[in-house]
């Protein structure tokens, strides 16, 4: 299928700023679904609130644009009630891990077969550049004019500790890897988390004087390295990319089928 067949052209132009990384991720996501040849009517995309969350409306799937931070809870209702559907949840960093942090860890703990994508641009873009739980110390934001003192989460470690059975990280620079990892994540049976580092040149970039979108993309290339690479051994500060966790544990909806079975047998 042509990529444009996945797009609701009627709803364009999109709201994203020039140079935003989210369009690249949309591209990788659509290509991943296309490669897997999943029929459009078998995909439910559930999103929350923020720049990232608008991704759902632009795509020709069943799309549910919900509340800030709550996407995974709506998605849990969709998935548990219709387990045969592919449920994909694109979220922003504030959406997924600040207001939605509790839902994030509990969805991971249940190991429900949902693909969670954290589009991490380290800032609240839609509201004008406030610091997020992934901004990290030293960052300037509209609510951290004297630089941010909050430590940040490591999404990969958090997701793994919470029980996600597939955990990966890549960046908007590595769009080929975005596509490949998302395919793996969607195919994985269980809760998968894919952190995709993205750039917000408008709010993060300008305020922190890190250059334009191209500079920010190049920077992502510079500061990341494949998992276990020699470069990582030489420079422990580098952020690893790739699949960190891939394991099999009982999937929630399948486990619920055993509950139904026991209930019907009267045990």
């Amino acid at each position, binding site marked *: 299928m042509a990529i444009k067949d996945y797009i609701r052209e009627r709803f364009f132009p999109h709201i994203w700023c020039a140079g935003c990384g989210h369009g690249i991720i949309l591209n990788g996501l659509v290509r991943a679904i296309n490669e897997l040849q999943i029929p459009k009517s078998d995909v439910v995309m559930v999103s929350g609130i923020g720049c990232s969350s608008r991704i759902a409306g632009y795509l020709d799937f069943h799309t*549910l644009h919900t509340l800030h931070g709550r996407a995974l809870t709506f998605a849990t209702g969709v998935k548990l009630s219709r387990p045969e559907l592919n449920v994909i949840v694109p979220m922003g960093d504030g959406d997924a891990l600040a207001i939605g942090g509790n839902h994030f860890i509990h969805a991971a703990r249940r190991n429900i077969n949902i693909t969670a994508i954290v589009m991490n641009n380290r800032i609240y873009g839609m509201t004008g550049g406030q610091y997020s739980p992934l901004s990290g110390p030293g960052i300037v934001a509209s609510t951290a004019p004297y630089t941010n003192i909050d430590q940040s989460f490591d999404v990969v470690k958090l997701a793994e500790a919470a029980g996600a059975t597939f955990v990966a990280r890549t960046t908007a620079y590595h769009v080929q890897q975005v596509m490949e990892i998302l395919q793996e994540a969607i195919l994985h049976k269980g809760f998968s988390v894919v952190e995709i580092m993205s750039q917000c040149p408008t709010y993060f970039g300008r305020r922190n004087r890190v250059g334009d979108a191209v500079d920010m993309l190049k920077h992502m290339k510079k500061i990341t390295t494949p998992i276990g690479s020699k470069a990582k051994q030489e420079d422990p500060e580098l952020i690893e990319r790739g699949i960190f966790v891939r394991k099999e544990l009982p999937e929630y909806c399948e486990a619920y089928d055993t509950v139904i079975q026991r209930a019907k047998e009267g045990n």
Partner: protein
Amino acid sequence: MSDNILFVQGNEACVEGALYAGLNFFAGYPITPSTEVAEQLSLRLPKIGGKFIQMEDEIASMCAIIGASLTGHKVMTATSGPGFSLKQEALGYAIMAEIPCVIVNVQRGGPSTGIPTHVSQGDVNQSRWGTHGDHAIVVLTASNHQDVFAMTVEAFNIAETYRTPVVLLFDEVVGHMRERLALPEPGAIPIVDRLRTSVKQGINYHPYLPREDGRLPMSDFGGVHRYNVTGLFHDMWGFPSDDPVVIRDLLRHLMDKLESRTNQLTHFKDFHTEDADCLLISYGSSARSARAVVEKRRMRGERYGLLELQTLWPFPYDLVRQKAAGAKTIVVVEMNMGQICQSVRQAVDRPERVFLSNRFDGVFIAPRDIEQSLRLIQGKGV
């Protein structure tokens, strides 16, 4: 004794009503005094292939049922005051996106954590205006288990008919009290099933384009029609819009679809209201005590009557005005500081006739409490 006669708590009567209505997805979080609803459904739903999930919090429970409603399920959650506060955000979402769902609030005393194990009817106005923004909502209540059952079925029927959340506003006394419940035979009470679109695959389906009768046929997520659902103001495609005409028309639609059907949505019971000099107006467990007072006074030949409201919102202004027309005195009996009393005063002519008989100390309002109020109202002292 027949299997159809049960001796159960009100919370269990609610469960029976929900299952009768076709409930097949429930998400909840433990909270007193509604927990028995979740406990019973965790036992009952899997037996019929339905789904029960205990979510991480009240917010998540409300959101999960909205997700499940969109795949074509009949859904419910249950809570009490603090949990009801937490659900308001997603309740507003369900109003805006027009998602059929039922929310049970077994009221306890508030504000805040309040008095978890004691009775109150303090959430009446919250059930109307708890979520932000102009909106309309349906709120039903009941005073005994047979009515809890019937109103629960009705809640699902209204939710499906009008694509709206419906709140079942019970209270701790009704929720925890045990009494007889006769289960109606299947088919004895009509069940409204979801109205699904007849638009065929390949033809444009507009999820938010009302039919001539105002109803909006749905298409299940996973079906042949793919569309967008959002809590933003949206056009007939479900796509966000900031067009003033779209905003105005959608808000009018959301209000009018319920407010203009107040008479159809109004459920009530009346006892001797036709010639009452003194009209008591009550609802929920308070109405049991009010009824006892009316019966006693009638035996003495005094012209007392009771209007028991079962639909609290949209408030039945016409009904109340009409029933109160001939009464010299109107006494609203409730367990809060006068929430329905306020609406009754707005509804009737000569509102100086309206008095409040209430308790708000966690203690059930007994007939003697109402009698005490009546003495004061009638100038007899205590």
